[in-house]
Protein backbone atom coordinates (compact mmCIF):
# COMPACT_ATOMS: atom_id res chain seq x y z
CA UNK A 1 0.00 0.00 0.00
CA UNK A 2 2.89 2.38 0.72
CA UNK A 3 3.90 2.14 -2.95
CA UNK A 4 0.40 3.06 -4.12
CA UNK A 5 0.21 5.91 -1.59
CA UNK A 6 3.61 7.18 -2.67
CA UNK A 7 2.65 6.93 -6.35
CA UNK A 8 -0.58 8.80 -5.64
CA UNK A 9 1.38 11.60 -3.96
CA UNK A 10 3.64 11.77 -7.01
CA UNK A 11 0.63 12.00 -9.32
CA UNK A 12 -0.89 14.79 -7.25
CA UNK A 13 2.39 16.76 -7.48
CA UNK A 14 2.78 16.08 -11.19
CA UNK A 15 1.59 19.08 -13.21
CA UNK A 16 0.57 16.85 -16.13
CA UNK A 17 -2.06 15.14 -13.92
CA UNK A 18 -3.93 18.39 -13.49
CA UNK A 19 -3.41 19.45 -17.07
CA UNK A 20 -4.84 16.14 -18.33
CA UNK A 21 -7.93 16.26 -16.10
CA UNK A 22 -8.36 19.96 -16.86
CA UNK A 23 -8.18 19.37 -20.60
CA UNK A 24 -10.86 16.69 -20.49
CA UNK A 25 -13.11 18.92 -18.38
CA UNK A 26 -12.47 21.87 -20.73
CA UNK A 27 -13.29 19.78 -23.79
CA UNK A 28 -16.54 18.58 -22.21
CA UNK A 29 -17.44 22.18 -21.41
CA UNK A 30 -16.60 23.18 -24.96
CA UNK A 31 -18.68 20.39 -26.49
CA UNK A 32 -21.81 20.96 -24.41
CA UNK A 33 -21.69 24.75 -24.38
CA UNK A 34 -20.91 24.72 -28.09
CA UNK A 35 -23.89 22.51 -28.83
CA UNK A 36 -26.10 24.56 -26.54
CA UNK A 37 -25.07 27.83 -28.16
CA UNK A 38 -25.39 26.68 -31.77
CA UNK A 39 -28.03 23.98 -31.97
CA UNK A 40 -30.85 26.43 -32.47
CA UNK A 41 -29.12 27.94 -35.49
CA UNK A 42 -29.69 24.68 -37.37
CA UNK A 43 -32.81 24.44 -39.56
CA UNK A 44 -35.90 22.77 -38.10
CA UNK A 45 -36.86 21.29 -41.44
CA UNK A 46 -34.96 19.61 -44.22
CA UNK A 47 -32.14 17.06 -44.11
CA UNK A 48 -30.08 18.96 -41.50
CA UNK A 49 -32.99 18.89 -39.09
CA UNK A 50 -32.06 15.28 -38.23
CA UNK A 51 -28.71 16.48 -36.96
CA UNK A 52 -30.42 19.17 -34.91
CA UNK A 53 -32.63 16.59 -33.24
CA UNK A 54 -29.64 14.38 -32.47
CA UNK A 55 -27.80 17.31 -30.89
CA UNK A 56 -30.84 18.29 -28.84
CA UNK A 57 -31.01 14.68 -27.62
CA UNK A 58 -27.43 15.02 -26.36
CA UNK A 59 -28.53 17.96 -24.22
CA UNK A 60 -31.71 16.33 -22.98
CA UNK A 61 -31.82 14.71 -19.54
CA UNK A 62 -31.92 11.95 -18.37
CA UNK A 63 -30.17 10.75 -21.58
CA UNK A 64 -27.44 13.36 -21.06
CA UNK A 65 -26.29 11.48 -17.96
CA UNK A 66 -25.17 8.55 -20.12
CA UNK A 67 -24.05 10.90 -22.88
CA UNK A 68 -21.60 12.67 -20.58
CA UNK A 69 -20.37 9.27 -19.35
CA UNK A 70 -19.62 8.10 -22.89
CA UNK A 71 -17.95 11.38 -23.80
CA UNK A 72 -15.85 11.04 -20.67
CA UNK A 73 -14.95 7.48 -21.60
CA UNK A 74 -13.88 8.47 -25.11
CA UNK A 75 -11.89 11.58 -24.17
CA UNK A 76 -10.61 10.13 -20.92
CA UNK A 77 -9.51 6.94 -22.64
CA UNK A 78 -7.28 8.72 -25.10
CA UNK A 79 -5.87 11.20 -22.60
CA UNK A 80 -5.54 8.52 -19.93
CA UNK A 81 -3.66 6.27 -22.33
CA UNK A 82 -1.22 9.04 -23.24
CA UNK A 83 -0.77 10.14 -19.63
CA UNK A 84 -0.18 6.57 -18.40
CA UNK A 85 2.38 6.04 -21.17
CA UNK A 86 4.15 9.23 -20.09
CA UNK A 87 4.21 8.10 -16.45
CA UNK A 88 5.57 4.64 -17.31
CA UNK A 89 8.09 6.00 -19.81
CA UNK A 90 9.39 8.54 -17.33
CA UNK A 91 10.12 5.76 -14.81
CA UNK A 92 12.62 4.41 -17.34
CA UNK A 93 13.81 7.72 -18.72
CA UNK A 94 14.41 9.45 -15.40
CA UNK A 95 15.97 6.33 -13.87
CA UNK A 96 13.54 6.25 -10.95
CA UNK A 97 12.67 2.60 -11.60
CA UNK A 98 16.39 1.85 -11.57
CA UNK A 99 16.75 3.60 -8.21
CA UNK A 100 13.82 1.64 -6.74
CA UNK A 101 15.18 -1.69 -7.98
CA UNK A 102 18.62 -0.85 -6.57
CA UNK A 103 16.93 -0.33 -3.18
CA UNK A 104 15.63 -3.88 -3.33
CA UNK A 105 12.08 -3.05 -4.38
CA UNK A 106 10.16 -5.65 -6.39
CA UNK A 107 10.12 -4.54 -10.01
CA UNK A 108 6.62 -5.76 -10.80
CA UNK A 109 5.16 -4.55 -7.51
CA UNK A 110 6.65 -1.10 -8.10
CA UNK A 111 5.22 -0.81 -11.61
CA UNK A 112 1.85 -2.33 -10.70
CA UNK A 113 1.71 0.05 -7.75
CA UNK A 114 2.15 2.90 -10.21
CA UNK A 115 -0.67 1.58 -12.41
CA UNK A 116 -2.84 1.11 -9.34
CA UNK A 117 -2.27 4.71 -8.30
CA UNK A 118 -3.03 5.90 -11.82
CA UNK A 119 -6.31 3.96 -11.86
CA UNK A 120 -7.29 5.32 -8.44
CA UNK A 121 -6.42 8.86 -9.49
CA UNK A 122 -8.36 8.36 -12.71
CA UNK A 123 -11.37 7.25 -10.68
CA UNK A 124 -11.26 10.37 -8.52
CA UNK A 125 -10.71 12.61 -11.53
CA UNK A 126 -13.51 10.83 -13.39
CA UNK A 127 -16.05 11.68 -10.67
CA UNK A 128 -15.02 15.35 -10.61
CA UNK A 129 -14.87 15.70 -14.39
CA UNK A 130 -18.20 13.89 -14.73
CA UNK A 131 -19.68 16.50 -12.42
CA UNK A 132 -18.20 19.23 -14.59
CA UNK A 133 -19.63 17.49 -17.67
CA UNK A 134 -23.11 17.31 -16.15
CA UNK A 135 -22.85 20.98 -15.24
CA UNK A 136 -21.81 21.74 -18.81
CA UNK A 137 -24.74 19.73 -20.16
CA UNK A 138 -27.14 21.63 -17.88
CA UNK A 139 -25.70 24.93 -19.08
CA UNK A 140 -25.84 23.78 -22.69
CA UNK A 141 -29.44 22.69 -22.27
CA UNK A 142 -30.32 26.04 -20.71
CA UNK A 143 -28.65 27.89 -23.59
CA UNK A 144 -30.58 25.80 -26.08
CA UNK A 145 -33.82 26.17 -24.18
CA UNK A 146 -34.10 22.41 -23.58
CA UNK A 147 -36.23 21.38 -20.62
CA UNK A 148 -34.36 20.10 -17.55
CA UNK A 149 -37.23 18.04 -16.20
CA UNK A 150 -35.32 14.78 -16.76
CA UNK A 151 -32.45 15.99 -14.58
CA UNK A 152 -34.02 14.46 -11.47
CA UNK A 153 -34.96 11.15 -13.07
CA UNK A 154 -34.60 8.77 -10.14
CA UNK A 155 -34.03 5.60 -12.18
CA UNK A 156 -31.13 7.12 -14.13
CA UNK A 157 -29.58 8.70 -11.06
CA UNK A 158 -29.87 5.36 -9.26
CA UNK A 159 -28.01 3.69 -12.09
CA UNK A 160 -25.22 6.26 -12.18
CA UNK A 161 -22.82 4.43 -9.81
CA UNK A 162 -23.00 1.36 -12.05
CA UNK A 163 -22.46 3.44 -15.18
CA UNK A 164 -19.49 5.23 -13.67
CA UNK A 165 -18.00 1.94 -12.49
CA UNK A 166 -18.14 0.71 -16.08
CA UNK A 167 -16.54 3.93 -17.32
CA UNK A 168 -13.85 3.52 -14.70
CA UNK A 169 -13.19 -0.04 -15.86
CA UNK A 170 -12.85 1.18 -19.44
CA UNK A 171 -10.50 3.97 -18.39
CA UNK A 172 -8.48 1.57 -16.22
CA UNK A 173 -8.01 -0.79 -19.16
CA UNK A 174 -6.89 2.02 -21.48
CA UNK A 175 -4.53 3.35 -18.81
CA UNK A 176 -3.07 -0.13 -18.31
CA UNK A 177 -2.60 -0.58 -22.07
CA UNK A 178 -0.85 2.80 -22.34
CA UNK A 179 1.35 1.89 -19.39
CA UNK A 180 2.18 -1.49 -20.92
CA UNK A 181 3.11 0.03 -24.30
CA UNK A 182 5.50 2.51 -22.65
CA UNK A 183 6.95 -0.27 -20.48
CA UNK A 184 7.83 -2.13 -23.65
CA UNK A 185 9.27 0.94 -25.39
CA UNK A 186 10.97 2.14 -22.14
CA UNK A 187 10.52 5.70 -23.27
CA UNK A 188 8.11 8.51 -22.47
CA UNK A 189 7.93 9.87 -26.01
CA UNK A 190 7.93 6.51 -27.78
CA UNK A 191 5.36 5.19 -25.31
CA UNK A 192 2.97 8.10 -25.84
CA UNK A 193 3.48 7.96 -29.61
CA UNK A 194 3.01 4.21 -29.87
CA UNK A 195 -0.02 4.30 -27.56
CA UNK A 196 -1.78 7.00 -29.57
CA UNK A 197 -0.88 5.25 -32.83
CA UNK A 198 -2.43 2.03 -31.52
CA UNK A 199 -5.53 3.92 -30.40
CA UNK A 200 -6.15 5.56 -33.77
CA UNK A 201 -4.96 2.51 -35.67
CA UNK A 202 -7.68 0.52 -33.96
CA UNK A 203 -10.30 3.14 -34.80
CA UNK A 204 -9.32 3.10 -38.48
CA UNK A 205 -9.24 -0.69 -38.55
CA UNK A 206 -12.88 -0.66 -37.44
CA UNK A 207 -13.76 0.45 -40.96
CA UNK A 208 -12.31 -2.66 -42.57
CA UNK A 209 -12.42 -5.39 -39.93
CA UNK A 210 -15.26 -4.40 -37.56
CA UNK A 211 -15.99 -7.95 -36.38
CA UNK A 212 -12.42 -8.48 -35.25
CA UNK A 213 -11.61 -5.00 -34.04
CA UNK A 214 -14.58 -4.88 -31.69
CA UNK A 215 -12.67 -7.29 -29.45
CA UNK A 216 -9.54 -5.13 -29.38
CA UNK A 217 -8.78 -3.11 -26.23
CA UNK A 218 -9.92 0.39 -27.14
CA UNK A 219 -13.09 -0.67 -28.97
CA UNK A 220 -14.05 -3.04 -26.17
CA UNK A 221 -13.40 -0.36 -23.54
CA UNK A 222 -15.52 2.19 -25.35
CA UNK A 223 -18.44 -0.27 -25.50
CA UNK A 224 -18.69 -0.95 -21.74
CA UNK A 225 -21.54 1.56 -21.40
CA UNK A 226 -24.74 1.58 -23.38
CA UNK A 227 -24.71 4.21 -26.10
CA UNK A 228 -28.07 5.74 -26.81
CA UNK A 229 -27.36 6.53 -30.43
CA UNK A 230 -24.62 6.76 -32.99
CA UNK A 231 -24.27 10.49 -32.44
CA UNK A 232 -22.86 9.61 -29.01
CA UNK A 233 -20.10 7.65 -30.61
CA UNK A 234 -21.72 4.23 -30.79
CA UNK A 235 -20.70 1.78 -33.46
CA UNK A 236 -23.09 -0.65 -35.10
CA UNK A 237 -20.47 -3.40 -34.75
CA UNK A 238 -19.65 -2.69 -31.11
CA UNK A 239 -19.89 -5.45 -28.52
CA UNK A 240 -22.92 -5.40 -26.22
CA UNK A 241 -21.98 -3.79 -22.85
CA UNK A 242 -21.91 -7.03 -20.83
CA UNK A 243 -19.65 -8.75 -23.30
CA UNK A 244 -17.52 -5.61 -23.67
CA UNK A 245 -17.11 -5.48 -19.90
CA UNK A 246 -15.76 -9.02 -19.84
CA UNK A 247 -13.41 -8.44 -22.79
CA UNK A 248 -12.22 -5.16 -21.23
CA UNK A 249 -11.48 -6.91 -17.95
CA UNK A 250 -9.47 -9.55 -19.83
CA UNK A 251 -7.45 -6.86 -21.64
CA UNK A 252 -6.88 -5.09 -18.33
CA UNK A 253 -5.47 -8.23 -16.73
CA UNK A 254 -3.40 -8.99 -19.85
CA UNK A 255 -1.92 -5.47 -19.87
CA UNK A 256 -1.04 -5.72 -16.18
CA UNK A 257 0.57 -9.12 -16.74
CA UNK A 258 2.57 -7.64 -19.60
CA UNK A 259 3.74 -4.75 -17.41
CA UNK A 260 4.79 -7.14 -14.64
CA UNK A 261 6.44 -9.66 -16.96
CA UNK A 262 8.31 -7.13 -19.08
CA UNK A 263 9.60 -5.24 -16.05
CA UNK A 264 10.74 -8.41 -14.28
CA UNK A 265 12.66 -9.61 -17.32
CA UNK A 266 14.16 -6.28 -18.35
CA UNK A 267 17.82 -5.48 -18.00
CA UNK A 268 17.87 -1.96 -16.69
CA UNK A 269 20.69 -0.03 -18.26
CA UNK A 270 21.04 3.70 -18.06
Amino acid at each position, binding site marked *: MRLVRSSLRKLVRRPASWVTAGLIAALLLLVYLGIGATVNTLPTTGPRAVGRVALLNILTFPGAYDGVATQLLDLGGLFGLAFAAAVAGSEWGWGTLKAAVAR*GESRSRYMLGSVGALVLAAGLAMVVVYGVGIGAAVLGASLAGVSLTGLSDAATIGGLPGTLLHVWLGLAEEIAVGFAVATLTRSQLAGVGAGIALFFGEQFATLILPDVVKYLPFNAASAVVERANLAAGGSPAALPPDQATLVTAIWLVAALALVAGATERAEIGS
Partner: protein
Amino acid sequence: MTTALAVHGLRKAYGSRIALDGLDLEVPTGTVYGFLGPNGAGKTTTMRLLVGLIRPDAGTLEVLGRPYTWHDRHRLFDVGALIETPSFYPFLSGRENLRAAAATGAPVARGRVDALLTMVGLRERAGDKVGGYSLGMKQRLGIAAALLSDPSLLLLDEPANGLDPGGIAGMRDALRALAAAGKTVLVSSHILPEVQQLADVVGIVAKGRLVREGRVEELLEASAVVRVKVSQEASAGAQAALAPRFGAEAVKLSMAGDGTWLEIHTAGSRSAEVNQVLAQAGVYASRLEPGSDLESLFLELTGEGSADGGLGIGGVA
Protein backbone atom coordinates in the same frame (compact mmCIF):
# COMPACT_ATOMS: atom_id res chain seq x y z
CA MET B 1 39.13 -9.82 8.01
CA THR B 2 35.63 -10.55 6.66
CA THR B 3 34.59 -9.74 3.13
CA ALA B 4 31.65 -7.43 2.52
CA LEU B 5 31.61 -8.00 -1.20
CA ALA B 6 33.20 -10.69 -3.33
CA VAL B 7 32.99 -11.14 -7.07
CA HIS B 8 34.47 -14.13 -8.88
CA GLY B 9 34.81 -14.67 -12.61
CA LEU B 10 32.14 -12.12 -13.43
CA ARG B 11 31.34 -11.86 -17.12
CA LYS B 12 28.93 -9.63 -18.96
CA ALA B 13 28.63 -8.81 -22.63
CA TYR B 14 26.33 -6.36 -24.40
CA GLY B 15 25.96 -8.02 -27.77
CA SER B 16 29.46 -8.42 -29.15
CA ARG B 17 30.99 -5.93 -26.71
CA ILE B 18 32.48 -7.55 -23.65
CA ALA B 19 32.05 -5.28 -20.63
CA LEU B 20 33.35 -7.67 -17.97
CA ASP B 21 35.73 -10.46 -18.76
CA GLY B 22 36.12 -12.58 -15.65
CA LEU B 23 36.27 -9.85 -13.02
CA ASP B 24 37.39 -10.79 -9.49
CA LEU B 25 37.05 -8.44 -6.53
CA GLU B 26 37.24 -8.76 -2.77
CA VAL B 27 36.13 -5.83 -0.68
CA PRO B 28 37.04 -6.12 3.02
CA THR B 29 34.39 -5.15 5.57
CA GLY B 30 34.74 -1.70 7.12
CA THR B 31 36.93 -0.25 4.39
CA VAL B 32 36.58 2.34 1.69
CA TYR B 33 37.38 0.48 -1.51
CA GLY B 34 38.43 2.54 -4.49
CA PHE B 35 37.20 0.92 -7.68
CA LEU B 36 39.44 2.53 -10.21
CA GLY B 37 39.51 2.27 -13.96
CA PRO B 38 39.38 4.30 -17.14
CA ASN B 39 36.07 5.10 -18.82
CA GLY B 40 34.51 1.93 -20.22
CA ALA B 41 36.57 -0.40 -18.02
CA GLY B 42 33.44 -2.06 -16.60
CA LYS B 43 32.95 -0.17 -13.34
CA THR B 44 29.33 0.84 -13.90
CA THR B 45 28.45 -2.58 -15.33
CA THR B 46 29.80 -4.13 -12.13
CA MET B 47 27.69 -1.73 -10.05
CA ARG B 48 24.57 -2.57 -12.07
CA LEU B 49 25.18 -6.28 -11.55
CA LEU B 50 25.65 -5.77 -7.83
CA VAL B 51 22.21 -4.20 -7.42
CA GLY B 52 20.34 -6.56 -9.71
CA LEU B 53 19.71 -4.17 -12.56
CA ILE B 54 21.27 -6.56 -15.06
CA ARG B 55 22.11 -10.27 -15.08
CA PRO B 56 25.63 -11.66 -15.30
CA ASP B 57 26.49 -14.05 -18.12
CA ALA B 58 28.77 -15.98 -15.77
CA GLY B 59 30.43 -15.68 -12.39
CA THR B 60 29.36 -15.45 -8.78
CA LEU B 61 28.59 -12.60 -6.41
CA GLU B 62 28.67 -12.54 -2.63
CA VAL B 63 27.09 -9.64 -0.79
CA LEU B 64 27.67 -9.23 2.94
CA GLY B 65 29.00 -12.74 3.27
CA ARG B 66 26.28 -14.63 1.41
CA PRO B 67 25.82 -15.61 -2.24
CA TYR B 68 23.70 -13.16 -4.16
CA THR B 69 21.74 -13.58 -7.38
CA TRP B 70 19.53 -11.12 -9.12
CA HIS B 71 16.40 -12.60 -7.55
CA ASP B 72 17.61 -11.93 -4.00
CA ARG B 73 16.23 -8.43 -3.90
CA HIS B 74 15.76 -8.42 -0.13
CA ARG B 75 19.53 -8.63 0.26
CA LEU B 76 19.67 -5.13 -1.21
CA PHE B 77 17.81 -3.79 1.82
CA ASP B 78 21.22 -3.60 3.45
CA VAL B 79 22.90 -2.00 0.45
CA GLY B 80 22.77 1.65 -0.57
CA ALA B 81 23.64 2.61 -4.11
CA LEU B 82 24.14 5.57 -6.36
CA ILE B 83 24.54 4.20 -9.87
CA GLU B 84 25.51 6.58 -12.69
CA THR B 85 23.60 9.83 -12.48
CA PRO B 86 21.20 10.47 -9.58
CA SER B 87 17.61 9.59 -10.51
CA PHE B 88 14.84 11.86 -9.32
CA TYR B 89 11.44 13.23 -10.27
CA PRO B 90 12.09 16.79 -11.45
CA PHE B 91 8.64 18.00 -10.38
CA LEU B 92 9.12 16.90 -6.76
CA SER B 93 11.19 18.69 -4.15
CA GLY B 94 14.35 17.18 -2.72
CA ARG B 95 12.48 16.14 0.43
CA GLU B 96 9.58 14.66 -1.54
CA ASN B 97 12.00 12.73 -3.72
CA LEU B 98 13.67 11.20 -0.69
CA ARG B 99 10.25 10.32 0.74
CA ALA B 100 9.30 8.69 -2.56
CA ALA B 101 12.54 6.69 -2.47
CA ALA B 102 11.87 5.76 1.15
CA ALA B 103 8.57 4.20 0.07
CA THR B 104 10.57 1.57 -1.84
CA GLY B 105 12.83 -1.18 -0.57
CA ALA B 106 13.84 -1.35 3.06
CA PRO B 107 11.84 0.56 5.68
CA VAL B 108 13.29 3.96 6.56
CA ALA B 109 13.38 5.33 10.10
CA ARG B 110 11.22 8.34 10.92
CA GLY B 111 13.22 11.56 10.76
CA ARG B 112 15.90 9.96 8.60
CA VAL B 113 15.02 12.05 5.53
CA ASP B 114 15.53 15.36 7.29
CA ALA B 115 18.67 14.12 9.05
CA LEU B 116 20.19 13.15 5.70
CA LEU B 117 19.16 16.42 4.06
CA THR B 118 21.03 18.19 6.83
CA MET B 119 24.02 15.89 6.47
CA VAL B 120 24.40 16.57 2.74
CA GLY B 121 23.82 20.29 3.20
CA LEU B 122 20.49 20.51 1.40
CA ARG B 123 18.18 21.26 4.31
CA GLU B 124 17.56 24.85 3.21
CA ARG B 125 16.81 23.85 -0.38
CA ALA B 126 14.89 20.69 0.52
CA GLY B 127 11.57 22.26 -0.46
CA ASP B 128 12.73 23.33 -3.92
CA LYS B 129 11.92 21.27 -6.99
CA VAL B 130 14.78 18.99 -8.02
CA GLY B 131 14.38 20.19 -11.62
CA GLY B 132 16.01 23.43 -10.47
CA TYR B 133 18.92 21.77 -8.67
CA SER B 134 22.49 22.00 -9.94
CA LEU B 135 24.37 18.81 -10.82
CA GLY B 136 26.25 18.99 -7.53
CA MET B 137 23.02 19.34 -5.54
CA LYS B 138 21.51 16.36 -7.34
CA GLN B 139 24.65 14.41 -6.55
CA ARG B 140 24.35 15.29 -2.86
CA LEU B 141 20.71 14.24 -2.91
CA GLY B 142 21.73 10.99 -4.61
CA ILE B 143 24.20 10.27 -1.82
CA ALA B 144 21.47 11.00 0.73
CA ALA B 145 19.14 8.60 -1.10
CA ALA B 146 21.81 5.90 -1.02
CA LEU B 147 22.08 6.32 2.75
CA LEU B 148 18.31 6.22 3.42
CA SER B 149 18.21 2.74 4.89
CA ASP B 150 21.45 3.13 6.85
CA PRO B 151 23.05 0.38 4.72
CA SER B 152 26.00 -1.80 5.73
CA LEU B 153 27.37 -1.66 2.20
CA LEU B 154 27.41 1.51 0.13
CA LEU B 155 28.05 1.45 -3.64
CA LEU B 156 28.80 4.86 -5.12
CA ASP B 157 29.46 5.31 -8.81
CA GLU B 158 31.56 8.43 -9.45
CA PRO B 159 30.10 10.22 -6.40
CA ALA B 160 32.24 13.34 -6.77
CA ASN B 161 30.69 14.19 -10.15
CA GLY B 162 29.60 17.82 -10.10
CA LEU B 163 30.62 18.45 -6.49
CA ASP B 164 32.59 21.58 -5.64
CA PRO B 165 35.84 21.22 -3.64
CA GLY B 166 33.99 21.79 -0.36
CA GLY B 167 31.43 19.18 -1.32
CA ILE B 168 34.14 16.68 -2.22
CA ALA B 169 35.89 17.23 1.10
CA GLY B 170 32.59 16.87 2.96
CA MET B 171 31.76 13.68 1.10
CA ARG B 172 35.22 12.31 1.84
CA ASP B 173 34.81 12.99 5.56
CA ALA B 174 31.34 11.45 5.59
CA LEU B 175 32.49 8.28 3.81
CA ARG B 176 35.52 7.93 6.08
CA ALA B 177 33.20 8.28 9.08
CA LEU B 178 30.94 5.54 7.70
CA ALA B 179 33.91 3.20 7.26
CA ALA B 180 35.08 4.02 10.79
CA ALA B 181 31.62 2.98 11.99
CA GLY B 182 32.15 -0.46 10.41
CA LYS B 183 30.32 0.10 7.14
CA THR B 184 31.83 -0.78 3.80
CA VAL B 185 32.01 1.76 1.00
CA LEU B 186 32.84 0.94 -2.60
CA VAL B 187 33.56 4.06 -4.64
CA SER B 188 34.11 3.83 -8.37
CA SER B 189 36.09 6.59 -9.98
CA HIS B 190 38.47 7.42 -12.76
CA ILE B 191 39.99 10.31 -10.81
CA LEU B 192 43.18 9.11 -9.13
CA PRO B 193 43.74 11.79 -6.46
CA GLU B 194 40.16 11.39 -5.25
CA VAL B 195 40.59 7.65 -4.72
CA GLN B 196 44.09 8.08 -3.33
CA GLN B 197 42.81 10.40 -0.59
CA LEU B 198 39.70 8.43 0.21
CA ALA B 199 40.33 4.71 -0.16
CA ASP B 200 41.98 2.13 2.08
CA VAL B 201 42.06 -0.47 -0.65
CA VAL B 202 42.16 0.03 -4.39
CA GLY B 203 41.15 -2.29 -7.19
CA ILE B 204 42.19 -1.24 -10.67
CA VAL B 205 40.14 -2.57 -13.58
CA ALA B 206 40.86 -2.42 -17.26
CA LYS B 207 38.95 -3.99 -20.14
CA GLY B 208 36.63 -5.80 -17.74
CA ARG B 209 39.35 -7.46 -15.65
CA LEU B 210 41.00 -6.68 -12.34
CA VAL B 211 44.61 -5.79 -13.05
CA ARG B 212 45.74 -4.82 -9.56
CA GLU B 213 44.27 -4.87 -6.08
CA GLY B 214 45.89 -3.85 -2.84
CA ARG B 215 46.09 -1.38 -0.02
CA VAL B 216 46.73 2.19 -1.11
CA GLU B 217 50.05 2.37 0.79
CA GLU B 218 51.29 -0.73 -1.03
CA LEU B 219 50.38 0.72 -4.39
CA LEU B 220 51.91 4.06 -3.49
CA GLU B 221 55.07 2.32 -2.42
CA ALA B 222 55.17 0.34 -5.64
CA SER B 223 54.81 3.58 -7.55
CA ALA B 224 57.13 5.67 -5.32
CA VAL B 225 59.35 8.12 -7.13
CA VAL B 226 61.88 10.81 -6.30
CA ARG B 227 61.92 13.60 -8.89
CA VAL B 228 64.96 15.79 -9.32
CA LYS B 229 65.24 18.89 -11.44
CA VAL B 230 68.70 19.45 -12.90
CA SER B 231 70.16 21.58 -15.67
CA GLN B 232 70.07 20.05 -19.13
CA GLU B 233 73.88 19.98 -19.35
CA ALA B 234 74.16 18.04 -16.08
CA SER B 235 71.40 15.55 -16.82
CA ALA B 236 73.58 12.89 -18.48
CA GLY B 237 76.12 12.99 -15.65
CA ALA B 238 73.38 12.81 -13.05
CA GLN B 239 71.79 9.80 -14.74
CA ALA B 240 75.19 8.08 -14.92
CA ALA B 241 75.83 8.74 -11.22
CA LEU B 242 72.45 7.51 -10.03
CA ALA B 243 72.16 4.36 -12.19
CA PRO B 244 74.72 2.22 -10.28
CA ARG B 245 73.08 2.96 -6.91
CA PHE B 246 69.36 2.74 -7.86
CA GLY B 247 69.48 0.62 -11.02
CA ALA B 248 69.59 1.82 -14.60
CA GLU B 249 65.93 0.96 -15.19
CA ALA B 250 64.84 2.98 -12.14
CA VAL B 251 66.37 6.22 -13.38
CA LYS B 252 64.52 7.96 -16.16
CA LEU B 253 65.04 11.29 -17.82
CA SER B 254 62.06 13.42 -18.71
CA MET B 255 61.85 16.78 -20.39
CA ALA B 256 58.95 18.71 -18.85
CA GLY B 257 57.86 22.18 -19.80
CA ASP B 258 59.69 23.68 -16.86
CA GLY B 259 63.06 21.95 -17.44
CA THR B 260 64.83 18.63 -17.23
CA TRP B 261 63.73 16.16 -14.61
CA LEU B 262 65.15 12.86 -13.47
CA GLU B 263 62.69 10.34 -12.07
CA ILE B 264 64.22 7.82 -9.71
CA HIS B 265 61.77 5.02 -8.91
CA THR B 266 62.57 4.44 -5.29
CA ALA B 267 61.01 5.09 -1.89
CA GLY B 268 60.68 8.70 -0.80
CA SER B 269 62.75 7.88 2.28
CA ARG B 270 65.82 7.61 0.00
CA SER B 271 65.60 11.25 -1.13
CA ALA B 272 68.61 12.26 0.94
CA GLU B 273 70.62 9.43 -0.59
CA VAL B 274 69.73 10.67 -4.07
CA ASN B 275 70.85 14.14 -3.11
CA GLN B 276 74.11 12.80 -1.68
CA VAL B 277 74.94 10.77 -4.82
CA LEU B 278 74.28 13.80 -7.03
CA ALA B 279 76.41 16.09 -4.84
CA GLN B 280 79.25 13.58 -4.89
CA ALA B 281 79.06 13.57 -8.71
CA GLY B 282 79.20 17.36 -8.72
CA VAL B 283 75.60 17.75 -9.82
CA TYR B 284 73.40 20.16 -7.89
CA ALA B 285 69.64 19.79 -8.07
CA SER B 286 67.45 22.89 -8.23
CA ARG B 287 64.44 20.91 -6.94
CA LEU B 288 63.93 17.53 -5.30
CA GLU B 289 60.45 16.07 -4.75
CA PRO B 290 59.75 12.72 -3.11
CA GLY B 291 56.33 11.33 -4.02
CA SER B 292 54.58 8.62 -5.90
CA ASP B 293 53.52 8.17 -9.45
CA LEU B 294 50.25 6.34 -9.12
CA GLU B 295 49.23 7.84 -12.43
CA SER B 296 52.09 6.11 -14.25
CA LEU B 297 51.29 2.86 -12.51
CA PHE B 298 47.63 3.28 -13.43
CA LEU B 299 48.45 4.04 -17.05
CA GLU B 300 50.84 1.14 -17.21
CA LEU B 301 48.33 -1.30 -15.72
CA THR B 302 45.37 -0.14 -17.74
CA GLY B 303 47.24 0.38 -20.96
CA GLU B 304 45.72 3.85 -21.19
CA GLY B 305 47.37 6.83 -22.83
CA SER B 306 47.38 10.25 -21.25
CA ALA B 307 44.47 11.23 -23.46
CA ASP B 308 41.97 10.35 -20.71
CA GLY B 309 41.02 13.74 -19.36
CA GLY B 310 40.24 12.36 -15.93
CA LEU B 311 43.86 11.42 -15.35
CA GLY B 312 45.34 14.73 -16.14
CA ILE B 313 45.34 16.17 -12.65
CA GLY B 314 47.50 15.57 -9.67
CA GLY B 315 49.01 12.26 -10.56
CA VAL B 316 52.07 12.99 -8.48
CA ALA B 317 51.43 13.35 -4.77
